[in-house]
């Protein structure tokens, strides 16, 4: 339907666990639940040390409009409120719960009453659901649209372009009913005119499961997308499905699109159906150091170590541990870090996979320019960054970089291009801040002079 598609790279799929029906992990002894598993203000704890909690019970309320509440993922006793070091390098408050193993649901669990748009948004807010594709943006905020007519299309992201990760695949295969409920919810309460499932065509089983939706419901369509990284990137998916370009500094909504990850939609539907908020997550456990890679459903806050142990432990010494896939995943320092709301995979890589090759000189081949989905020029950005030329970085639009890593993946000289982009972005924002302050100072001065006159 759409002629041109944004570029990207062909990454190895490594979907080893696509056929692995998720198994529920043995209840962990303790869970560590950080108050910041989403973009926005951290949640505020509402439980005290020593308090008994049950599964699904509120333990922290949203800390602001852009925030999300957090619920107990195990039944047990609150052991401590602690500051833990998270992957961003910051210390974040976390609630540590000692599990009693009973996994008793909280008495107050009941499906919310949803009758209209507002009650739907309230329910989404209460569900604790955030963008489960990885971004962790509070979903209720995304759905709080002032004018529903503005939304031309809901795009359900089933691209899952990251290597290894199959948790979205499992959502489409195992939670098809919840996705159907989700479609109905969007239609009923968000007045959805068009719902597009964007699925990479290397997942024909998923396409087969979702395609009947389109037959039953005229507003639904399934778009089979060529496997390409980063097909699931928000701006990329919007362009590749409805052909709209999200301009710099604007939101998808400005071009009439709302993108929801398929697992996010299923989680909303689950809460509205059962009343059980987001307390557990299907996580792909894979990587060359893992003995038996598979999908595991684990309570949020479960230490990584428990998941690896549940998957037969390590067959070789892990040299790199990742939250997420290998293209955008975050390396973590040890196996004690917990599973978060937006964790879709954890990987343990052996020595061979953990070490990335040393960079050599740029040969000006232009591959990075060819693969950048957003039309940036990483090779030129690198030069400008080295020369501390912020004005050029501004012209080269490094601020648009979504850090997908396609450039660094494809670079034959193995240059850390996306890494440089990240540094260049902060150099540029510092430069812009100075520019802004300068402009304000000048404006103030002019005003003063005028006043004197």
């Amino acid at each position, binding site marked *: 339907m759409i002629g041109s598609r*944004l570029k990207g790279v062909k990454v190895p799929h490594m979907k080893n666990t696509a056929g692995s029906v998720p198994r529920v992990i043995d209840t962990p002894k303790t869970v560590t639940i950080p108050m910041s598993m989403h973009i926005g203000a951290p949640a505020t704890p509402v439980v005290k040390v020593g308090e008994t909690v049950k599964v699904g019970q509120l333990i922290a309320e949203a800390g602001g409009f852009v925030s999300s509440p957090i619920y107990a993922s195990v039944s047990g006793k609150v052991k401590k409120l602690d500051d833990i070091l998270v992957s961003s390098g910051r210390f974040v408050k976390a609630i540590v719960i000692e599990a009693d193993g009973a996994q008793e649901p909280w008495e107050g669990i009941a499906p919310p009453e949803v009758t209209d748009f507002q009650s739907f948004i309230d329910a989404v807010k209460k569900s604790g659901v955030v963008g489960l594709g990885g971004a962790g943006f509070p979903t209720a905020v995304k759905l709080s649209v002032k004018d529903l007519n503005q939304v031309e299309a809901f795009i359900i992201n089933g691209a899952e372009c990251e*290597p290894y990760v199959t948790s979205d695949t499992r959502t489409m295969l195992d939670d098809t009913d919840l996705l159907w409920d989700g479609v109905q919810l969007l239609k009923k309460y968000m007045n959805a005119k068009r719902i597009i499932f964007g699925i990479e065509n290397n997942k024909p089983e998923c396409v087969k499961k979702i395609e009947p939706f389109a037959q039953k419901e005229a507003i639904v369509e399934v778009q089979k997308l060529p496997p390409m990284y980063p097909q699931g990137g928000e701006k990329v998916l919007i*362009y590749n499905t409805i052909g709209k*370009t*999200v*301009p*710099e500094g*604007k939101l998808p909504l400005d071009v009439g699109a709302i993108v929801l990850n398929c697992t996010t939609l299923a989680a909303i539907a689950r809460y509205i159906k059962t009343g059980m908020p987001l307390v557990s997550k299907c996580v792909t456990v894979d990587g060359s150091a893992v003995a038996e890679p598979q999908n595991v459903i684990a309570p949020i806050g479960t230490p990584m170590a428990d998941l690896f142990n549940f998957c037969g432990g390590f067959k070789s*010494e*892990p*040299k*790199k*541990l*990742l939250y997420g896939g*290998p*293209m*955008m*995943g*975050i*390396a*973590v*320092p*040890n*196996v*004690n870090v917990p599973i978060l709301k937006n964790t879709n995979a954890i990987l343990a*890589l052996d020595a061979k*996979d*953990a*070490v*990335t*090759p040393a960079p*050599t*000189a*740029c*040969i*000006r*081949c*232009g591959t990075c*320019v060819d693969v950048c*989905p*957003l*039309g*940036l*020029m990483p*090779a*030129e950005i690198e030069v400008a960054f080295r020369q501390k030329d912020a004005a050029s970085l501004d*012209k*080269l*639009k490094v601020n*648009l970089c979504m850090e997908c890593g396609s450039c*660094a*993946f*494809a*670079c*034959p*000289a193995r240059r*850390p291009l*996306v*890494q440089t982009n*990240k540094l260049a972005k902060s150099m540029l924002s510092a430069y812009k801040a100075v520019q802004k302050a300068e402009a304000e100072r000048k404006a103030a001065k002019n005003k003063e002079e005028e006043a004197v006159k």
Partner: protein
Amino acid sequence: MNENVIGSVSPHIRGRRDTKAIMLDVIIALMPALVAAVILFGFRALLLTVISAGVCVICEYAWEKALKKEITIGDLSAVVTGIILAFNVPATMPIWKLIFGDIAAIILVKMLFGGIGCNFVNPALTGRVILFFSFTADMTNYAFPKNTVDALSSATPLAVQSELSWANFLDLFLGRHGGVIGEVCTLAILVGFVYLVARKVIKPIIPLTFIGSEILFAWLFGAEAPVLSAFAGGLMFGAVFMATDYVTSPITNKGKLIYGIGCGLLTAAIRCFSNSNGGVSFAILLMNIVVPYLNDLTRSKPFGGVKVK
């Protein structure tokens, strides 16, 4: 606690192709021309090629060793430079003179500017031009193919354009005429071209616009046989193997287009209005110099980007 894990920024995987693999592909693409050269000019063509490649590698190694820099000969780029330079001399070239050209190409053009990726002109091409001015007689003493009775008789078909006719097109195409080692056999060069494009080492933009615009401008400038002359001299080899050098050609598609047309225009102009040999070399060298400007002028358009004044 497991303190033995590596912390690094994503991505944690890399594509398979590295600089060495690309250079190896270029070397493979050069092989048909080498085979043709050996058939046409005998084993001296092979000898010169091997010596040239070897000297280039030794030069790079010695330079880096002497300056205590990281040794980069493993990337095979020096081998490519050596082969291409050898392909630019006649099979009769005295060996020491070729070595002189190799040293100039690697030390003067490549290493003095910072090694691979930093040279602003093509090393092999500059080596050729240096040899051309240093030893003009040797460089234009074009060897004749062996065992070919019906080979075109003039020094090089380009010198006497009136000899170019469709009747001896096959001789031109197969390389049965005088010339330098690597550029006589159009067929072999085209095989290399197809390989490079199929392996996605190069895009066809530069060779096609270069050759196409050369023919067009030669015709406009009143050349006797604009199409046939494209098969003579160094145009094919230059367009496929020298104008496409990554470092000295633009990184954007638009830039490549302008660069290819510029190369074609300059080649046609030199061929039609000057008696000088080596029009292709000078055209590419001149275009090499404007590459940074072409890159700046043809920057890609960021997706959804708002223009900065």
